[in-house]
Structures are given as C-alpha cells and as structure tokens.
C-alpha cells in the first residue's frame, strides 16, 4: 500500500477518496457516485487505512464514532443506576452501609449494595468508562482533524471539472469568462467577506473555514474538563471534609494540616413564626409544623502559629469572625467553610444535688461537665463529692462488676460518686444516671439526685477546597467556543472555472444551503456566469 498519485500530479496519502489538490475521484466507488462525499473533503481517515498491528486495531476501535456513541449511552445508563438509591456518601454515618441498605430498602437495597451501586461513581468500572470516553474523544478527533486540515490546506483553486460536476450546487454553460466580470464579482465577493484566490484563470471564493474546526475545539474543551476531573484525585487539589463541632469547641480545620483552627461560638436555628409572613409561610407552617429560616454557626477562624509538629500546643491568632449561613461560607486561602448540618441539644453538663434520702434536704448542687470532669466537688461545711468513675455511654456492668461505657460519646452518662458528709466522713458510694441512682456498695444515707441537664448544639461544617474549578471553567468555556464556532458560521465555497470553451460553476457549504444560494445569486446576478442549481431537492 502506498501513496496515491492523482492524474493532476498531486501525491495523496493512501486511502484518499478525492484528490486533495484537484478533487478528482480516486476510488472506483467515488467515481460512480452522483455527488461527492464532502464531509471530510474526501480525505483519508487515518483509521481506515492501516489495520495490521495491535496498535492500529486499538486506534481504529477508539476512532469510531459508533463506538464513541455506545460509550456515551453506556455511561448514561450506568450513571442513572446510581440515582435509584442514595449513594453511600449521603447515607447517615451512624450505620454501616452494608446494613443500611438492607434495613432501609429491603432485599432490593441488599442487592443494590452487593452489586456495588452504592458507590457507583467511584467504582473502577465507571471510571474506566469515563476514561474510555476520553480516549475515544482524543483519538476520534485526531483521526479526523489531521486529514481534514491537510485537505483544506492543499486544495487547489482550479478543481477538476469532475469534482465540480459532483457538487450539489452546479451549473455549466458554453462561453468564456470575461475579465471585467471576474473583477466585478471579486469585489462583490470581497464585500461578503470571501477570500478570493485566482489560479490559471479559475476562481475560488471561500469563507469561514474556521467553523470546520468547531467540533474539534469542542472536543478539546471536553478533554480539558475530563483532565480537570482527573486532577481532583491528585493530593492537594481537592478537599471535601466534614467537621462536627460543638458550641464552645475549638477544633483543627481538617484538610489544612493543622494550620487553622475554628471555634463554634454559637449555633442558631431560626424558624418562621406563624403570622410573620402570612401569605408565604402560614400555609406551609400549618401543613408541616415548622419552616426553617436560618441555620447559622457563629465561627471564629484562627491560625496556629505553632504548627511545626502534630500535638504541639497551638498558639492561636484570630484571622476572622464570621456567621456562617447556608450559602454564606467563610472563606480563607483557597478554602470555603459551609454550614452543612446540625444536631440540637447534645448533653453538655449534668447537675446533681447531694440529698439526704430520708429528709430530702439538699446540701448543694454540683455541675459535672461531661467533657471535663473534676476529681472532687467541694460543697463546703464538710460536704464534698468525689467523682470515682465516669461512664459516658453506660452499657451495664462487666463480669467483674465494673461499669462499662461502650463509646466515648456522652449518650447515656453515668457516674460513680463518693459522698462525704459530716455524718459519713468515710464516704458513701452512689451510682447516678439521669433519672436513676443505685447503691452498688450497700445502703446509703445520701444520694446524688439528678437535677438538671445542660445541652448545646452541634454544628456540621463542610470544608471545601477545589483547585480544579478554574480548569473545569476553562474546559467549559472552550467547549462553548467550539459549539458557537461550529454552529453560527458556515464554511462556504464557490468555484468558477473555464475549460475548453465551457464555464463551470460549483458551490459547497457545510450547512445552510439556502444561505449560500442567496449569496451566490446576489454575486452572479447580472453576469454571464450561470448560477449553480441545487440538484438535491429536499
């Protein structure tokens, strides 16, 4: 297989259908067709040429538009499966996914989880499909844009009459071209922004060739977009973390490597009151009870000046204070902190009163902070309470009789107190919970009576950083430029030549034939040059 040399002398790449230079049909099939196929200017689509090595085979597979469309269809279908049930990322975190899906959605949920659809968009096969689409885009584009560019660059002005005869817009007539007429139409064509070239007495007027690159620019945009998405998995490019922070707490901002701390001063949830805006909200309030107006975390951001080593005592300097509301994030560096969720009334501290069981007399109240307990609480005049044990998530007693906490979270706090009074200087033991006291070491005269509970809200903040956004934006813009470039202009050409006493006229456009016809009409009107006719009635 070698080059194809045309009668005009131009050497074409193997597989060429129409000579790049003069336009003569080079294949038997093209010679018999009524119209020439102008989609890629009859150029040699590279994939169609060689099919020997494995590399060629892979290349040919991905260069096929048919394959590309199949990949898109598969992606659409696959992506839709992920929307049937919520993805793993969105389910409550207090339950393992394998139990959650079966519990909530039954047998279907179990199968859904087993197939792996609960984390579909991160699955290897889904990523592989997206990757296949990217590869298909690159190869299919390269396979077409290179030969098309070559063909348009090499095209000659004086095309062979056989090429012109097979154009959709064509006319021929006896006669000769008048130099004065040529000059006149040249002016007219130039006014319509055609680039006019003359060679050997033949004329080629062409405009808007750039519109032919539209689809490829569009593909470049898509590829930039996919690369941007790929960059998300590069460390440091994309951070999306969740931080649960109680009122009053100061915590490290995850994702910042300890450089920043955030304090939650207060979390506020406001609802619309009935009558506040009756027309808008009263009906909804009647129907659903409450309508939220505002979720807000009053936060202070600090920078840690002593962040050399993990664990080092932080030295905090305030950077900014901000009321974070939904869609009103706190921004710093490349980070944004969003209000995401909340939990109201988490237990914070408990009040107990040292009480004489018989008389009911109280000898003072102690407040035990569930996050920072004291060893003893002095009530004065010989009354004192010692804390002997704290079980934040009390879950019964072990075999050895020791109270057991099943987690460090204060879900069901229990305390072992030693009560010292003037009458019981050695102390008495009381095991106290919210509404219950026990006497594990025998009958006592006093008890720790539960009085009160202090609660506070917990706010969930999302910390997000996304350096890929500018890349995605560029990809999107390039994509749109490609769409516009390919949609709003037409690549139009008009050929006029005289040969052996006959005038040949042909026109071609990649779309909007009507527009081309009108333009040709206004250019050729009033000349002896015949107007090409549309031979394909649609």
């Amino acid at each position, binding site marked *: 297989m070698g080059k194809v040399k045309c009668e005009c002398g131009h050497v074409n790449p193997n597989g060429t259908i129409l000579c790049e230079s003069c336009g003569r049909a080079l294949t038997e099939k093209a010679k018999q067709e009524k119209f020439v196929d102008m989609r890629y200017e009859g150029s040699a689509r*590279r994939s169609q040429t*060689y099919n020997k*090595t494995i*590399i*060629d085979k*892979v*290349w040919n597979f991905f260069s096929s538009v048919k394959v590309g469309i199949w990949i898109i269809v598969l992606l659409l279908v696959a992506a839709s499966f992920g929307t049937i049930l919520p993805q793993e990322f969105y389910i409550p975190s207090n339950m393992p996914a394998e139990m959650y899906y079966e519990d909530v959605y039954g047998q279907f949920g179990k199968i859904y989880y087993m197939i792996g659809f609960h984390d579909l968009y*991160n699955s*290897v096969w889904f*990523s*592989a499909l997206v*990757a296949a689409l*990217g*590869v298909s885009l*690159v*190869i299919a584009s*390269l396979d077409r844009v290179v030969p098309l560019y070559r063909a348009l660059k090499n095209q000659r002005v004086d095309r062979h009459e056989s090429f012109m005869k097979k154009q959709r817009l064509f006319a021929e007539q006896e006669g000769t071209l008048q130099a004065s007429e040529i000059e006149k139409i040249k002016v007219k064509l130039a006014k319509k922004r055609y680039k006019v070239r003359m060679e050997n007495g033949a004329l080629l007027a062409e405009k808007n060739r750039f519109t032919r690159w539209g689809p490829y620019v569009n593909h470049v945009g898509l590829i930039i977009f996919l*690369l941007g998405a*790929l960059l998300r*998995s*590069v*460390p440091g490019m994309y951070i999306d973390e969740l931080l649960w922070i109680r009122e009053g707490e100061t*915590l*490290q901002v*995850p994702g910042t490597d*300890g450089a920043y701390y955030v304090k939650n001063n207060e979390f506020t949830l406001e609802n619309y009151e009935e009558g506040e805006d009756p027309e808008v909200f009263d009906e909804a309030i009647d129907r659903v009870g409450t309508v939220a107006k505002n979720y807000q975390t009053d936060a202070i951001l600090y920078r840690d000046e002593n962040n050399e*080593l*993990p*664990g*080092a*005592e*932080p030295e905090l300097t305030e950077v900014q204070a901000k009321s974070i509301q939904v869609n009103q994030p706190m921004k710093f560096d490349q980070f944004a902190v969003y209000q995401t969720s909340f939990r109201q009334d988490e237990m914070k501290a408990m009040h107990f009163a040292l009480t004489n069981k018989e008389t009911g007399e109280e000898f003072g109240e102690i407040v035990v902070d569930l*996050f*920072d*307990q*004291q*060893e003893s609480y002095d009530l004065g005049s010989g009354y004192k309470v010692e*804390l*002997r*044990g*704290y*079980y*934040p*998530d009390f879950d019964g007693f072990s075999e050895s009789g020791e109270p*057991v*906490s*099943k*987690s*460090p979270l204060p879900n069901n706090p229990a305390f072992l107190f030693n009560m010292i009074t003037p009458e019981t200087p050695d102390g008495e033991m009381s095991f106290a919970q919210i509404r219950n006291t026990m006497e594990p070491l025998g009958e006592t005269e006093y008890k720790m009576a539960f009085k009160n509970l202090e609660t506070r809200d917990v706010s969930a903040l999302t910390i997000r950083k996304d350096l890929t956004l500018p890349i995605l934006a560029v990809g999107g813009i390039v994509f749109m430029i490609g769409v516009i470039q390919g949609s709003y202009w037409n690549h139009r050409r008009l050929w006029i030549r005289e040969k052996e006493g006959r005038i040949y006229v042909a026109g071609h456009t990649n779309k909007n034939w009507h527009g081309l016809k009108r333009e040709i009409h206004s250019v050729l009107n009033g000349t002896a040059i015949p107007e090409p006719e549309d031979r394909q009635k649609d």
Partner: protein
Amino acid sequence: MDKKKKRLYMRAAILAVLAGLVIYALYTNVTKESRGALEAGDKAPDFVLTDLKGETHQLSDYEGKGVFLNFWGTWCEPCKEEMPHMEKLANEYEGQVEILAVNVGESDFQVNNFAKQYGLTFPIAIDSGKEVMDTYGVDPLPTTFMIKPDGTIDQIVIGGLIQEEQVRALFERVKPSS
C-alpha cells in the same frame, strides 16, 4: 523514516500517553481510601505531646531506642487487657524500649482515673486535638506502632495484645542491638 513506521510510532506514543493517564486515574481512584496511610518501613512522623505529669515527649528524642506507640481509649476493652502487659514490660525493658501511650482525646479525669486504676507508670499523653491520631491515621482502637531505634515503623498492630508473649515479641523486635 518510512511514513508508515512514523505513523505507527505516533499512534503508539499517543496511546501510551492516554493509557498512562487512564492508569493514573484508576490507580488514584482505587487507592483514594488508603492514601497517606502509614505502612511498615515508613518513617514515623514526629510529634510532641505532654504527658499527665506535664513532661513533654517528642518522638525524635527517642531515636536510638525502640518505641511502643500505643493509641487507646478508656472505654476500649482490649486496651484494658493489654495495659498490664505493657506496664510489666515497660519496666523490664527500661532504657531500651519506651512506651508512649496516647489517649485519643478524653478528659483528664478519665485518663488519670484509668491510669490510677491500672497502676500505670509509663508516660501517658492526651491527644486532645486528635492531631497525632490523625497524623497516624488511627481508626480502630487500640492501634500500636512499633518504632525502631532508627525512627522507622517496624510493625503496625491493630487490635488488642492479649498475651504478654505477644507484647514481648514486639519489644524484642525493636530493642536496640547492643
């Protein structure tokens, strides 16, 4: 060069670049979960913590000695089981292998109470901001990092060490060869 050959090389090069990108994308996707996690052979990240007695401990100060770096919580049952073994061997291997027990951010009272109850004398520090815990990527408790005298991680043990012999074997592995 022959054009056909040139084209083949061109195609091979383009496909290679694409394949590289695809493999990278799939690889980072698959390893997303475990990325940044420490493994045996890695350098143990340095940190500094203050123990219950108010003494500061910086990991790099222990170079030349083995370190038994243990993350624990007072509610965790297996932690309770391994503590007595740790206490015993800490004394036996004094000067050779040091124990550093890092509590995962509970209150002073709870940790002190626990230390008293089990009679623990080795340094115990509270990682109140969970910074060290995050740095070491600790999830289930207890997790123990055995750190060699040169500061690299010899082994990561997840779960309780029920037998004294298990603990002893770990100590033996990281004690400095004299």
